[in-house]
């Protein structure tokens, strides 16, 4: 309970503070323009996607890269539609997960998320899922859900799971707003 409390406090205070700094650190100049997904969030999602999706993800190479880029772009749009308080919560959560002490605690490594080996990411996800701390279980469920949303939105995912796609074809309006 104590640890839950401390981590909870960290989420609110430090995460909130850091989330005010747009796209600190990890933002590389080649990163696509995003509406709502922070650079930190993107880095974490890139690290966990292969672990969560396993063999569903194409082997490393251009096909995998394309799935990741498409998924991240869709998730960015999806997050941009969430209510302000939820968007803030998402930003703060990612910012908290990127704090060095939190990274060390969760993955046992000093490395950035992008440099954390998949085994360490997997071990973190497994222990978060079965943790006695509610907040960590919630972090796992949240991260897993985002990966699922970003991946199963894509026709390449449909092929892999035997979903032939929508029965009524519509012009690909996708993320156009109105």
């Amino acid at each position: 309970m104590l640890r839950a409390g401390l981590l909870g406090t960290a989420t609110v205070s430090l995460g909130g503070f850091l989330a005010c700094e747009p796209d600190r650190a990890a933002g590389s100049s080649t990163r696509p323009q995003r509406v709502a997904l922070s650079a930190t969030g993107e880095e974490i999602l890139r690290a966990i996607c292969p672990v969560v999706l396993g063999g569903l993800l194409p082997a490393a190479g251009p096909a995998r890269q394309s799935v990741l880029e498409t998924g991240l772009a869709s998730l960015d749009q999806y997050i941009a539609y969430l209510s302000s308080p939820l968007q803030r919560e998402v930003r703060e959560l990612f910012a908290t997960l990127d704090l060095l002490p939190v990274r060390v605690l969760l993955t046992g490594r000093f490395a950035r998320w992008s440099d954390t080996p998949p085994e360490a990411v997997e071990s973190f996800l497994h222990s978060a899922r079965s943790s006695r701390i509610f907040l960590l279980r919630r972090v796992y469920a949240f991260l897993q859900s985002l990966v699922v949303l970003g991946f199963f939105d894509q026709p390449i995912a449909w092929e892999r799971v035997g979903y032939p796609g929508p029965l009524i074809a519509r012009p690909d309006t996708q993320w156009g707003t109105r």
Partner: protein
Amino acid sequence: MSDREVYVGTTLEQDLQLEADVAIVGTGAGGGVAAEILSLAGLRVVLLEEGAYHTSEDFESRELPSFAKLYYDGGLRPTSDGGLGVVQGRTVGGSTTVNWTSCFRTPEPTLGFWQETLGLQGLAPADLEPWFERMEARLSIRPWETPNPNNQAMARGAEKLGWRYGAIPRNVLNCINLGYCGLGCPVGSKQSMLVTTIPAALDRGAALVTRVRADKLAWSGDRITLIEGLALDERGVHPTGRRVRVQAPWVVVAAGAINSPGLLLRSEVPDPHGLLGKRTFLQLHNYSLAVMPERLDPFYGAPQSIYSDQFTWRDGVAGRAGFNLEAVGAQPIASMNFFKGMGSDLEACARSLPHRHTLVAQIRDGFHAESPGGCVQLRNDGSAVLDYPLNEYIWDGVRSSYLVMAECQFAAGANTVRPASSDASSYRSLAEARSAISSLPLRAPNVFLNSTHPLGGCAMGADARSGVVDTDGRHHQLENLLVIDGSVFPTSLGVNPSLSIYALAARNATTLAATIDRHRRSDRGRFTIHHALPEVS
């Protein structure tokens, strides 16, 4: 549609002021029905909607963008601790635009509980029957006779076990069984508010403002004086700075559970007994995932067409948590959302999708002392959030329903059954499932729970001490305020709620129209006398 009066908050170049006989906040099951009835009574109605005006032609049968655009918080509106999500529509037509069309009359045990235990009068089955009949006719509600393989499997299991089950009445017309109800019906078959009551109201001179968030109700004495709305950007997230103000002698709040009490809390309306936002119910949904030997293609065909109420009242109305059962079928994201595994486990689950059979148990809440429901609160920024603690009463319903759903799925021929909990695994026999489920740790959010049926928070009560509104939907303290939506129910229902909301909305809007007519006649009387006096003298 060109001569209909529709404003889009996003594109307003200046503040908008409107006047009406009745202003309605929300265009879902409550607001939509009320708008049609009041418009047909000759009243000028103004409707405010936070979502956008997406129509059948816009619905793209693609999950992620549809969830983002048509649902509140992308369909994942979290409770305050994030333990589970509430699924609510946020588009013209509200949740009726994205629901799965299951329309049940309010069960008699529920109405009996309201009358006998809560003292609510005028809501007996015979009182409501004409209103159910009226809305069933209006929305073409009739039992669905061609269930898809996913629903057939549930019927097969229930039949084999000797359970009570039946065909679900659906509000559809010329439905071609596509299965995309949750993403907005792309062919306009679903008789949602979007294609029925709202266009009817607009054709009778109602005005609709989309992409506007009702921020506050201004009030003075015992009357609402003004609705203050904030125009929203193209995603419906951030205010643009333009304001929408509506003045009307009558105000109907129909923003649904969570947002209706949220609006009233934000407006600091009188709440002398501290009832506002309390007793919010979710009829929590938990899920069981099976793999059948045959291909079911659960992503196609009416997603929900078979129900069983075998266990809804299993221990009496006020006993242990009962639950109704329904089949669940949907496209990949919605289906995979129930499964929180990863790696090879996730891959195996995903690859079995065409053979997937999913059942949902909806655990009714609010009928027992240990089932007080949740409480709507305001965040610092004024937005509404539901606090819903999970307790032993709920977990008992979860465990019992996991067992029952596994029984049904094995009876239907399942190869494996797996409760939708990341602490569970796949079981190959009923005996194995029983043994594992009886000792399964039940904890959030590993047990996947959500709710598409948030209800309550502005509960009906016989008097001001027991309810926010009376059974006509009239607010107990503010005389020109009504609440007409799912937030008025004093418990959950034990069934999918749409028809209960339609019917009560029809009754209460009809009563309101008569009340307004009476007021007008007496006002006209006074007016005549005032002007007649000089002539007489």
